[in-house]
């Protein structure tokens, strides 16, 4: 069994703060972490490897040299091989260019050792686009299952798997051929505390570094800014939330206050809500 996991190093957005004076992001001291969904993807790959009795887990990332740290954490978690795709020429990539680079890398990895399954986290917490996984599956022309929460069956001999996927109505149970690409929710596999020998192995591990030209060339037209149809027109911090009106029951009376509250509830336009769970009738 050969699984490839694509991961991303992201700033821990739960710790991003806005400087109230300048209105800019305070990046100082914001730790870089493995995208939280991706570490579950790695765990899922490692557990699958254990389940089928062996194989290889290859983890890849596109990013700056510092992203090697994130790969090492995946090696601790049980990945066997780690590849950092890093080159200034890849900079400024949007989801289309990123999916090209990852798909091309996976093709090369597949040529060395055929790949049976590819894992992505369901989305990265810095961009939240959830588009790179679907893009890679499309480029590789293999089945895509997003929001996967469990792998019920995985049959290498029959080249098929049964995967559970979260949708609005509940859990969809899908049968797919292999190879398949999954983007995963955290439920796919709880992250285990990595064994100490793995930490020691990772501390001594050097990830491979691939550039835009070596060991394989990437199409310069499809990478980085050049390969990205979208550009950021402007970026700004949302205006800090300011309070609206404050009214009091004592001054206006209960009826008037409730009427104002109802108008505000109306403003949230929640009437056309789809229920979070349950049947859409």
């Amino acid at each position, binding site marked *: 069994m050969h699984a490839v996991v694509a991961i991303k190093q992201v700033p821990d957005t*739960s710790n*991003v*703060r*806005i400087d109230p004076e300048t209105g800019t*992001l305070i990046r100082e001291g914001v730790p870089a972490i493995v995208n939280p969904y991706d570490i579950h993807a790695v765990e899922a790959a490692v557990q699958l490897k254990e389940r089928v009795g062996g194989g290889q887990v290859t983890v890849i990332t596109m990013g700056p040299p510092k992203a090697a740290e994130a790969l090492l954490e995946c090696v601790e978690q049980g990945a066997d091989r780690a590849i950092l795709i890093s080159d200034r020429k890849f900079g400024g990539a949007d*989801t*289309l260019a990123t*999916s090209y680079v990852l798909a091309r890398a996976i093709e090369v990895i597949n040529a060395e050792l055929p790949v049976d399954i590819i894992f992505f986290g369901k989305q990265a917490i810095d961009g*939240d*686009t*959830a*588009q790179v996984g*679907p*893009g890679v599956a*499309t480029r590789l022309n*293999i*089945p*895509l*299952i*997003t*929001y996967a929460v469990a792998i019920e069956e995985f049959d290498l001999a029959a080249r098929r798997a049964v995967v559970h996927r*979260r949708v609005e*109505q509940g859990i*969809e*149970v899908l*049968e*797919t051929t292999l190879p398949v690409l999954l983007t995963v929710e955290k439920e796919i596999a709880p992250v285990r505390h990595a064994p100490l020998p793995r930490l020691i192995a990772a501390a001594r591990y050097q990830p491979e570094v691939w550039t835009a030209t070596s060991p394989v060339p990437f199409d310069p037209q499809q990478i980085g800014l050049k390969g990205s*149809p*979208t*550009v950021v*027109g*402007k970026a*700004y911090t*949302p205006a800090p*939330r*300011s*309070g*609206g*009106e*404050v*009214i*009091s*029951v*004592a001054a206006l009376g209960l009826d008037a*206050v*409730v009427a104002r509250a*109802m108008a*505000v*509830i109306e*403003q*949230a336009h*929640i009437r*056309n*809500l*789809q229920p*979070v*769970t*349950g049947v*859409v*009738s």
Partner: protein
Amino acid sequence: MNAEQPTIPRIWVFVEQQEHQVHPVSWELLGAAKRLSADLPGSVVEAVLPGHQVADLAPQAFQYGASRVYVIDNPVLEIYRNLPYAVAVSRLVTEYRPEIFLIGATTLGRDLAGSIATRVGTGLTADCTELSIDPANHILAATRPTFGGNLMATILCRRHRPQMATVRPRVLPMPEPVPDATGEVVNVPFNMREEDVPVKRLRLIRAKEQPNIEYADVIVAGGRGVGGPEGFALLQELADALGGMVAASRPVVDAGWLDASRQVGQTGKTVRPKLYIAAGISGAVQHRVGMSGADVILAINTDPNAPIFQIATLGIVGDLYEVIPALIRQVKGQSYDGQAHL
């Protein structure tokens, strides 16, 4: 091919239906497309409706503003799967070359949009909250939150067409349907066979999920001011009436009135509901970082100096035991039951 007048700027909206039920975001997008159309001279608003035996949904699309509906009907489209949908819609896009293509950022839409954009080789801005036409060059300015909502980015796609965007449900207003509106139905042939689809749906488990306040659209949260676990029954009643969930600030969880999974704030969860009702919550920074991303905040507190009022859309100084029962009566009268009202 019948790619008539490719110069007409077409604004397309993907009509998402499952089990013959259209997701409301599709209508919201038609409303948005209408507004964009006003800023894009000569443009038309059209809808794409794939599925099996769904042609009868087309009139609804006309009512919400589409002048034409492309119906792609095939049994392989009965249940949504990525491949047949991506192939069918991509072919249509290649044929008609729309200027703009909008898709709801739902589970289905997010699964589909990236595949279409990759097949067509164009740019996609995911999960937008705002759309407009840049008046200078008539291109789509799609704005989306990033870095966990701490930064807004306006994304442009200058040279590739269509300009694709997925848009979050319920961030755009629901347009009023025009009852007698009509339009043209274009039946698009699509002849993929079931044996060409590598993914089969074996079953659907319709299960109630574990309560997770992070996904809730309406949250009624209580703080120390609620006074005790009994008060949360009242908050639960309001939450039920609004189709939402109950949450709490740290002191409440510390006191054991509510489970830790319901805690909002720095050491709890970060929520981003449409409506956040804060009852008896003073609003320490610790709590505010967890909920200030809510669209609308209604705060009820007896203390007029409570910091929560600094960020509330509407602050009510008063006794929550007086205000909330009155709210419950009003809300129940207007049936905010969390179900779709179409």
